[in-house]
């Protein structure tokens, strides 16, 4: 029994979600191997080899892997799938994009968003926006899994010394082409890996106000910025800041929700945070029902006060 973790990386480095996925893979039993399919990705492969608990890294190199296109990466996974009992991806935009292609080609079901490994064939996963937890048993010989990173501690990024094996790259599918991206560059921690998140809702009223009020708080705390779906839909915050059932699932040490009422869909994305602070002027806001500390106040006065007090 051996597990394969399909690494998420940017060719130069391994993304944090890969570490949590390695932990989940180790819990499935047996050895853990990591696939790095990339372009000029030797450094990412080297980093993968240092992850504690990884026995082998398989490095496939090709220009058509540069941007992680699902068609190409899935084909590469399938080329080596025969050796593995479990194939795991982080449940990120990239992992969710690729994993089902692999499962369908193997004619197996996929177990999405696993939060706990009960045994090599039995897993826990949230359904209905986290309002219920299902324990499911896979009836297939091979298990294709996406891992909800908040359910597993990250494996240590260093301390391992896996061998790196080169795999023959599958050819380009030729059907899909990467055209470009707009990835916001800033010094803030990644939303899904941040220790502290400050999140704003519709009450902010505009993109300008969102920036003016929330950014100083995030700067002061070294926090990542998040937003409710209402704030994103209204254009106050970019789409990749959305925390919730269909956005990012986060579980930081501290989550500060300002002007967020707390719809079920939002709570689904953040209720596993260690400490939740809610700042809202509506005493009936559902967010207070999950908050460790609730402050009934107008965020436009409370947040600047908070920034000054920190």
């Amino acid at each position, binding site marked *: 029994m051996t597990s394969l973790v399909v690494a998420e990386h940017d060719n130069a480095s391994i993304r944090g979600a890969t570490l949590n996925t390695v932990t989940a893979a180790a819990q499935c039993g047996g050895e853990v191997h990591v696939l790095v399919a990339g372009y000029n990705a030797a450094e990412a492969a080297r980093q993968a080899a240092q992850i504690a608990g990884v026995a082998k890294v398989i490095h496939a190199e090709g220009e058509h892997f540069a941007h992680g296109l699902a068609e190409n990466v899935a084909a590469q996974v399938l080329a080596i799938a025969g050796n593995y009992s479990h194939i795991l991806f982080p449940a990120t*935009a990239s992992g969710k994009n690729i994993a089902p292609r692999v499962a369908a080609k193997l004619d197996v079901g996929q177990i999405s968003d696993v939060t706990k490994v009960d045994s090599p064939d039995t897993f826990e996963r949230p359904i209905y926006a986290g309002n219920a*937890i299902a324990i499911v048993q896979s009836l297939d010989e091979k298990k294709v899994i996406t891992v909800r990173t908040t359910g597993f501690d990250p494996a240590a990024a260093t301390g391992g010394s896996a061998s790196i094996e080169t795999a023959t790259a599958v050819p380009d599918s030729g059907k899909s082409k990467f*055209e470009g991206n707009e990835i916001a560059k800033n010094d803030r921690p990644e939303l899904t890996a941040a220790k502290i998140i400050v999140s704003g809702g519709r009450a902010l009223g505009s993109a300008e106000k969102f920036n003016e009020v929330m950014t100083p708080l995030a700067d002061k705390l070294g926090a990542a910025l998040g937003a409710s779906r209402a704030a994103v839909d209204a254009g106050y915050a970019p789409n990749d800041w959305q925390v919730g059932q269909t956005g990012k699932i986060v579980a930081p040490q501290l989550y500060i929700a300002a002007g967020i009422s707390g719809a079920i869909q939002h709570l689904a994305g953040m209720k596993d945070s260690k400490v939740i602070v809610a700042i809202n002027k509506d005493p009936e806001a559902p967010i207070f029902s999950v908050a*460790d500390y609730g402050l009934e106040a107008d965020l436009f006065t409370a947040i600047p006060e908070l920034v000054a007090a920190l």
Partner: protein
Amino acid sequence: MKVLVPVKRVVDFNVKVRVKSDNTGVDIANVKMSMNPFDEIAVEEAVRLKEKGVATEVIAVSCGVAQCQETLRTAMAIGADRAILVETTEELQPLSVAKLLKALVDKEQPGLVILGKQAIDDDCNQTGQMLAALCDLPQATFASKLEIADGRAKVTREVDGGLETVSISLPAIVTTDLRLNEPRYVTLPNIMKAKKKQLEVFKPADLGVEIRPHLKTLKVMDPPKRSAGVKVPDVATLVAKLKNEAKVI
């Protein structure tokens, strides 16, 4: 170009489901059912493509119980031209749905299939990608913008760090994210019109597809409860609590 739009009947997004006391599932008896919100966005996008003259026909498809006909009528009220129901009372998991849809893709030969990125009941986020794999077609998931030109689809995708644009050859599979469009409200005249549109019904066996579960649900439980904490009177108390009690700053 034909556009195929699979739609799923799910518990309405406003309903807070309850876990059954015997832990076999969630209680959906007498609960309001609606079209999965992401699928509504998919139908809207397909109808807009027809209105722009890019698509010639929009076919809505649903797999499941007889009541899915209502969901298909809604899709036709938004503007789908006709509908197909693959009727079964068996539990349908994503791979089985993808196989049924593959059979319909073979039959109808659409240039584009637009699906919701995930259903809000099982939160699987699998069917579109599985269909793409079974059909050996390219995919663009989590779309926030879709343009069709010169036999290709240019799709802006919502990814973790921001947005990404891919160009895929047609036929192709696209799954929708929230920001792709805002679905129109269905009007009474369109609901009436939808009643007269064609709705074909097949059984999985008619399509040569065997429904087989790949996952067995052993138990469904309530999530760990998070209890409400305390209300603090002011910012100073909040900061003190975070520093001394919670020790998170």
